[in-house]
């Protein structure tokens, strides 16, 4: 079909204003109604996942090679550090064993109902928003693997964020640093509650603290149970800076370099068969820092 020249010219002249207007409307629409977009994002992510998976594997290989070269340079120093750390961790292991047996005895004494089942599934990061104002990652596990919205995503080091959207074979994890991330946390020692608010910087902010709390650099922050999403006591990070009202937390997890995440179902609904043993389906990254291993059962 031939379109007459004037019509074509008019269409070309109007294309730009029309498309700009359309984009603007889409942005404004997204601010009022997110449900449609959520569905769209999930559907597209599921379709694009195989492509992203295919692209990300060679990229991961190349990064791995570069990484091993840079590792080789510092291998001597690293070896010494690891030996030292190993000695320290062995002490912790000893402590943990003792506490575990003591814990078991005490549980027995007070007839405590066993913990809910903790099952986890590990996923590889296949996309990273990489933008200047959105901090999230796409992992290659979804509904099919038992991932649900709201579950916690962890690395060996600590909490990374929560699952925001789930498709059949992908899930989007909103990182702690994202503008829309608000996670109930508490101080590991004083149990003072606060909210950890992402503000697009590398270190999220602590807000809504009780006024009398004394905050020191290096205070450990763990998840708080008050949100009802995460179990309390998951390691999150440490207080990295305090200046006036602004308290910033350095997450334990290295959010800039996420490769494998563990999405953990803590069975908060309590309907799963009871056994206190974690059932990892694939191995996550080994724990590095001193705090307790990730699925730390709340010690009562």
């Amino acid at each position, binding site marked *: 079909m031939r379109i007459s020249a004037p019509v074509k010219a008019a269409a070309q002249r109007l294309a730009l204003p029309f498309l700009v207007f359309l984009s603007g409307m889409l942005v404004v629409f997204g*601010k009022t109604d997110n449900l449609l977009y959520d569905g769209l994002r999930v559907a*597209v992510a599921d379709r694009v996942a195989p*492509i992203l998976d295919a692209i990300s594997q060679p990229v991961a290989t190349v990064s791995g090679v570069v990484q091993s070269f840079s590792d080789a340079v510092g291998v001597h120093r690293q070896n010494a550090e690891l030996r030292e750390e190993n000695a320290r961790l062995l002490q912790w292991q000893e402590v943990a064993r003792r506490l575990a047996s003591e814990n078991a005895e005490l549980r027995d004494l007070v007839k405590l109902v066993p913990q809910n089942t903790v099952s986890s599934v590990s996923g590889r990061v296949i996309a990273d928003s990489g933008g200047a104002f959105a901090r999230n990652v*796409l992992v290659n596990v979804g509904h099919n693997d038992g991932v649900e919205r709201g579950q916690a995503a962890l690395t060996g080091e600590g909490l990374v964020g929560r699952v925001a959207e789930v498709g059949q074979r992908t899930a989007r994890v909103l990182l702690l640093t994202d503008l829309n991330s608000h996670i109930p946390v508490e101080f590991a020692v004083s149990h003072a509650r606060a909210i950890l608010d992402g503000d697009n910087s590398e270190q999220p902010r602590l807000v809504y603290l009780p006024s009398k709390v004394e905050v020191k650099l290096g205070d450990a922050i763990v998840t708080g149970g008050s949100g009802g999403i995460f179990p309390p006591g998951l390691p999150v990070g440490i207080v990295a800076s305090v200046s006036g009202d602004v308290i910033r937390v350095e997450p334990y997890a290295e959010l800039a370099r996420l490769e494998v995440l563990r999405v953990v179902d803590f069975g908060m609904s309590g309907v799963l068969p009871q056994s206190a043993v974690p059932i990892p389906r694939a191995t996550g990254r080994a724990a590095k820092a001193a705090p307790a291993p990730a699925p730390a059962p709340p010690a009562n």
Partner: protein
Amino acid sequence: MPLATLRDVGYPARLLPFLSTLIFALVSVVPINLPGFAVVTPAFALMAVFHWTIYRPDLMPLTAVFAIGLLLDIINGTPYVGLSALTLLVARTFVMTQRRFFVNRTFPVVWLGFLAVTVANFALVWALVSMLRGTLLGFRPFLFQAVLTVSCYPVGSYVLARAHRAFLIRA
């Protein structure tokens, strides 16, 4: 639909600008776990849109820019679907007005032009997101991404120029 007609004409090579921009957009979301590489990644799609708008604007129509921007927004999982589409359209329109100046210039001049476009682009993104959120966002991540994008331009441009020569100039 300019894209449909291109396909009807039967020149698969003429889809090169669109496809390469699409691939660039996808590459920009792939996690690169290099040591020292920051949270942000270069805006590869902007490079491709800039390159093709200068050298083959006829094969980089507005609808293609819009579609790629939209896809990028959806894959990125940003709360503002349409934002990249909008800013890429603005970038393309601006480059179109200065196109005559850039064609047949040496690479450093074009690079300098890309610097200006990138800075303007990220300033716009920053302003829009700040406006949508109702607070002034920190400028650093935006600045950082702009610097990263500009410094990666030679590589992106080289790849596109090679593809350009291989597929589009032979005819």
